[in-house]
């Protein structure tokens, strides 16, 4: 009697253990993948045109990168600083006119533009841009070759704790916990 009960329970239990193991591996796999491809931006922003053609420095738009924790997203007004006049430069990209219309409409309606964030740090960590820029690190150290990127950006580095700590060690920077976890 006892044996029958045990075997009756053992089959579903084994199935369950196997299923849990499968799910655990699957979840770990999904979470460990790099974040790509990113969802589409509301307006296609071509960094390469702004950097290569217009010759803008990163801090021309991201103007607080060397002053505070966030590089700062340019406001719509700053886009319009040029794009109230500039409507076409070089070979026209498909959809460029529509994108420009979207931008101008946002300005007309005094509406914010919701961009898609493509870089993500783990939870419980602070990253402050200013000291990194002030230490002389070029932006592409972490962000890759943004200046030649044509559409949505992708995160090129893991930007996890191991990544940060190895770079901090290599540059003789602080590695105390509170340097980032505060």
């Amino acid at each position, binding site marked *: 009697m006892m044996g029958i009960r045990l075997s009756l329970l053992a089959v*579903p*239990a084994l199935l*369950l253990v196997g*299923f*849990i193991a499968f*799910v*655990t591996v*699957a*979840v770990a796999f*999904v*979470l460990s993948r790099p*974040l790509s*491809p*990113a*969802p589409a931006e509301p307006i296609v922003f071509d960094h390469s045109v702004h950097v290569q053609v217009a010759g803008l420095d990163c801090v021309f738009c991201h103007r*607080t990168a060397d*002053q*505070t*924790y*966030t590089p*700062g*997203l*340019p*406001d*719509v*007004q*700053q*886009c319009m600083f040029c794009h109230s006049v500039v409507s076409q430069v070089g070979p026209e990209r498909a959809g460029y006119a529509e994108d420009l219309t979207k931008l101008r409409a*946002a*300005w007309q309606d*005094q*509406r*914010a*533009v*919701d*961009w*898609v*964030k*493509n870089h*993500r740090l783990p939870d419980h960590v602070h990253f402050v841009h200013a000291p990194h820029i002030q230490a002389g690190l070029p932006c592409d150290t972490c962000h890759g070759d943004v200046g030649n990127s044509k559409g949505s950006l992708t995160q090129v580095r893991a930007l996890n704790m191991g990544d940060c700590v190895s770079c901090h060690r290599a540059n003789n920077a602080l590695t105390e916990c509170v340097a980032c976890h505060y």
Partner: protein
Amino acid sequence: MNFDEQPMEESRPDGLTRRQFLQAMAATSAVGAVAFTGCQPGHPIQGHEFQMESRVRLAEDVLSGFENFYATTCQGCGAGCGLVVRMIEGRAKKAEGNPDHPLNRGKSCARAQSVVQEQYLPDRVQGPMRRDRATNSWSPISWDDAMTEVVRQLRDSTGQNALMLTGPVSGGRASIVDRFTRGYGATWLTLDVLDEAPLREAVRRVFGQDRLPSFDIQNARYVLSFGSDFLGGWISPVRHNVEYGIFRQGSYRAGQFQPRQGRPRGYLVQAEPRMTISGAAADEWLPTRPGSEGLLAAGIASVIAAENLGDAEGMRSFNTTALRSVQLDQIARDTGVPAERIQKVARDFASRRPSLAIGGGLAGAHTNGSDSLTAIMALNVMVGAVGRPGGLILNPAPALEGIPAPRATRVADWQQAADRMRQGQVKVAMVYGANPVYSLPSLRFNEALAQTPFVVSFSSFLDETTALADMVLPAHLPLEDWGNDVPDPAPGFQVVSWQQPIVRQQYDTRSFPDVLLALGDELGGATRSGLPWRTFQDMLKESAQALQQERRGSVRAPDFERFWTTLLQQGGWWDESRTQPAGSGGPGQGIPANLALPQYQGAESDYRFYLVPFPHTTLGAGESSHVPWLQGLPEPLTSVTWQSWVEINPKLAADEGIHEGDVLTVETPQGSAELPVYINPAASPQVLAIPMGQGHTGASGRYAGRDGKQRGVNALALLAPAVDQTTGALAYGATRARFKKTGRRMSLPKFEGTIPAYQIPGEEVLEVTRES
């Protein structure tokens, strides 16, 4: 403990065994995990975490995580203190006093602190709205349509049929309202329940000046204050508090304590019927019969004259005719202060110089208000306090020209306006910063507004008056607006406080002066030619240019741009050297000959008590009741929050068997109200004291009370429309009252007594003794 012994398997109510339960849990978790990840293919985290907002405009000074500080002028009351507001990422976080400002010297009060809460209050009117009178429903409307409608209404009407009803406005704002109403021909009335018109009249009679004087409390040795709660909220409370600190113990300015070297600690005597914060801080408190403060001053004057204790020069210029008829015994009976006490105060006041007599507030809010305050002001002449350090300093003419003089609130004017509205003679009423439906209930403005074809309010909150308007065009709040203020009283020299928009407008609001300029432009004719500026800012710049050309004072710059920037940075302009020349006396009236007890509404036989409605420390006369911080801050003497109460004397309470929290019906000839009792040892036995500020019935915001659920009681609704006989200002202290017990009780929301007092073991008990 052995966990195996616990009879868990049997005890689960759903009949599951522990093993089955754990199995089920595991299975459920696994399914949940699959479902969780399965829903988000490719992107484990989505939604708002991946959104970044590119704002439409970022101010140049916005630096994430960094703070900025901007100077401006507080609009919480009429004092005109300077503020410095801490801003982070475009948001006002904290308001503090401007350390450079000569009025408040870095200090601030609760009302100033709460400007940031008012700014972000969810109850603000967020854009122009129009009300359908038939359904009493509001619907949004664009500024363009609203302005077109207002212009049409103003064109259809004439100046004679239009009213401009405002609260106390000052500086450039007053100038614009003045020019607009004169150009259009409309009648302009200002409403301030706590108007100090009787004090202005007294100052005019004694010193020949239209400006309020500065009370140099900090250098005085002896301050005798009548009815004016100068530490609680009277005319310039922050400045008075700073000076009071120096008066008592020295100065903490610039982080260093500078004791009153060589000078004894100042001595404060407060005479009033209900103990105020100033009374609580005083060395001596003289409980007087309401409205008898002038008689008390006359009694003191008679003692000084009889014993020849006064200042020789002061006595020469003092008209002592009226003093001959003063009988000290009669005065003792009228005021309720024993003759010996009056003599002692008179001798102290005359001998401990520099001494200073202050009067106003409740002492002036009687039918004899101006006369009482004249007697009190005249005491300063007797002891030679005028124009001397530690005395009463007369203020020089304002540095800016073209600013209209402060306008008195005459109840008769408002009565006439209400009558005209009721008779249909008023076609357009414009309301800004005034709430006559709440503040003057006896004039029944609600009926008057119903008979007025077009009522437009410029309030940012739906107060009682705005709720009855046809249209509301919300004005900027103080942190969003430009402005300047010529403080009255000034601190003895010329001061102009400057106000600048330090946060971007949060909603679809406009600056009230800008709206008037736009209306003037549309109306054309005299209205337009009287307002030659495009924006309010242009007008203020013009004023600043005039100041720059003076080439004196705290801000000097060779070019205007630098002058303007420095002016805004410092929060104003002042010239400490520009004082009122010495010897500029006035008519020098002494004690008024016809000084008598005031008249009260309600016969003494029917109404045993004097009703003392007093301005609430933070809510004032009800203009700040929509701000929850100010509601929640305990009233300093009773510690009551969020509620009205009636203060009665402990002996009276014992005789009548009344306990704290008992609900009484307080009746006056004008009306009645139900209020919980607070037993206050410092309330005179013949007095029922009620705070102003509560009892809002309109939709002034969820914190003041709405949808018929009012918070507390409007003390002003109990008042008869009695006035000071000279100035016509509301005599809010001139009503008698009685009470009935309702038999009900309520718990009074207060902090006091929630933790009982106890003796700390081993600590000495401090005994408070009376100074001999």
